[in-house]
């Protein structure tokens, strides 16, 4: 049986009784079991089937939410009660959380069916998924290429039709960049919209949970289920519940859409630039007014990010000491136990960032690095604030290149970090951003990034949906997924 591509389709199938949630779930689990991409770390079959049966009862009773009975994939950095949660790290292998993240509780309450946990770069540190302690993930469009990261497994699960939707986390682009490289929709909400309670902490002032989906409408449906104040996370804003789909069909006629000139610079692949320029032309045809704008400090974003993020990570990851959970490698005394545990448990990229972050926070360097980065963060935020006085949203590429060959950037951290130059300023300023498929370059997907002002997710979805209606790019499927379907 074919898994419906979207939440909207799945909800219709379930309500027309063409299939039960159990049937959809079994079909999804069967695809997950045959996954050729190493996209999954844990299959939660018993959990999924129990949730599916409960969803079928609820659907039979009527009045079920749209997500009820729909199978989804959870990035393995999001805690799931009773289901192993590793964050892609040896140091958390075997860790079974005693409680679920709030986002999981909310999807549970909506009746959605969690299939299992997806692969990722260790502690979400990476842009290729090659930093997972449990092996790299391959891109369904080309098995020799990376899916992007850090939420590579979640992006692949949706791109390969193994799950109808997925959750990821985005600290500097970890949802939007893999969405772009795998040809699906990925969205990072405004900082403070979604609870981080129960999510393994990476860089707390930047992290945000968000959806992967096959359509803009689906992404909005998921956000409606996730958004809202959580007493367990003091950084969630007490905003009223919002209909995020109210502007989906409003179109872009008369809107002012900004094109930041600093996002079209050398380093971008010509095929990516061509696809994004063609997309801008579509927006012009749809009646939007394209306005060239300037965000002069864009090229400082990488430096700000690679001070703040490792600094916050070095503090957050201090908890992995072999005492309360996770790996312990015993030494002759407690300090040596810490050193051996962390030396054996963390992979190279995590060690690199902890060392970088610890250095940036250490005596004598704090003001020059961390203090200065926080001030330049203010400068970047103000530039976005000023631009949003003039335009409704910004249109940019999501990533400077398409999916790259496995191993191509593995020994050059700085080259790897440059994958996120268009996405990480959005985290620095706390803004909402979305990546939607906007064509192919060399047979591989290209993503368009749309950025809106804080709390303007409805505007973000409106701009994205207008393009989606006008084109067919979001329907493109990887050859591998089509092959898998033919074989099924």
């Amino acid at each position, binding site marked *: 049986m074919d898994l419906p591509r979207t939440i909207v389709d799945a909800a219709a199938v379930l309500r027309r009784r063409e299939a039960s949630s159990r049937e959809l779930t079994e079909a999804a689990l069967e695809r997950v079991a045959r996954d050729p991409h190493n996209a999954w770390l844990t299959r939660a079959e018993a959990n999924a089937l129990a949730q599916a049966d409960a969803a079928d009862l609820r659907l039979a009773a009527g009045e079920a939410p749209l997500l009820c009975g729909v199978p989804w994939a959870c990035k393995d950095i999001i805690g799931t009660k009773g289901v192993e949660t590793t964050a892609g790290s040896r140091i958390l292998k*075997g860790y*079974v959380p*005693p*409680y679920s993240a709030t986002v999981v509780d909310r999807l549970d309450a909506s009746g959605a069916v969690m299939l299992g946990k997806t692969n990722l770069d260790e502690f979400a540190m990476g842009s290729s998924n090659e930093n997972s302690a449990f092996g790299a993930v391959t891109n369904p469009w080309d098995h020799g290429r990376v899916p992007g990261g850090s939420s590579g497994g979640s992006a692949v699960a949706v791109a390969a039709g193994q799950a109808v939707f997925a959750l990821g986390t985005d600290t500097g682009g970890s949802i939007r960049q893999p969405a772009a490289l795998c040809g699906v929709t990925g969205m990072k909400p405004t*900082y*403070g919209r979604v609870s981080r309670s129960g999510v393994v902490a990476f860089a707390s*002032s930047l992290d945000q949970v968000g959806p992967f989906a096959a359509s803009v409408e689906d992404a909005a449906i998921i956000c409606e289920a996730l958004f809202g104040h959580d*007493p367990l996370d*003091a*950084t969630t*804003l007490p905003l009223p519940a919002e209909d995020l789909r109210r502007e989906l069909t409003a179109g872009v006629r008369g809107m002012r859409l900004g094109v930041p000139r600093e996002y079209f610079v050398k380093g971008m692949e010509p095929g990516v630039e061509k696809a994004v320029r063609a997309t801008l032309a579509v927006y012009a045809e749809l009646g939007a007014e394209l306005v060239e704008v300037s965000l002069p*400090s864009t*090229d*400082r974003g*990488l*430096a*700000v990010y*690679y*001070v703040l993020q490792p600094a916050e990570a070095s503090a957050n990851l*201090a908890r992995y*000491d*072999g*005492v*309360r*959970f*996770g*790996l312990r490698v015993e030494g002759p*005394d*407690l*300090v*040596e*136990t*810490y*050193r051996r545990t*962390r*030396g054996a448990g963390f992979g190279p990229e995590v*060690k*690199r960032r*902890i*060392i*970088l972050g*610890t*250095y940036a926070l*250490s005596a004598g*360097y704090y003001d*020059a*690095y961390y203090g*200065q*980065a*926080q*001030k*330049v*963060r*203010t*400068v970047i935020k103000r530039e976005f604030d000023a631009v949003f006085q003039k335009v409704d949203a910004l249109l940019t590429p999501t990533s400077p290149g398409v999916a790259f060959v496995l191993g191509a950037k593995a020994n050059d*951290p*700085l080259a790897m*970090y440059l994958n996120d130059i268009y996405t990480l300023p959005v985290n620095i300023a*706390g803004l909402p951003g979305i990546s939607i498929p906007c064509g192919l370059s060399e047979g591989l997907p290209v993503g368009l990034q749309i950025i809106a002002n*804080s709390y303007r997710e409805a505007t973000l979805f409106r701009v994205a949906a207008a393009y989606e209606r006008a084109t067919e790019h979001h329907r493109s499927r990887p050859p591998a997924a089509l092959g898998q379907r033919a074989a099924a």
Partner: protein
Amino acid sequence: MTAIDRSVVEHVAALARIGLTEEEIVRFTGQLAVVLDAVGKLAEVDTASIEPTASVLPLVNVMREDVVRHGLSHEAALANAPSTDGEFFRVQATLEER
């Protein structure tokens, strides 16, 4: 900004309580120098009159009612521990007997 040599990496690794192999020390020394050189660009920005942003949120001092509620049971809290003793996490002694 200081030049990065292996003694800096060893010092920072000690602060971070991470044991590194000889090979890692050598590799990280080179890579840290490259990354710090790239982030050194920040010094070029004039921030004399700029306040730092620690959080983008418009929130200060979030308060809540002081309500008693159940936390994790001892059993649940200890379930993932590498070593326990009754109701406690077991660790090596840090104080010497005299």
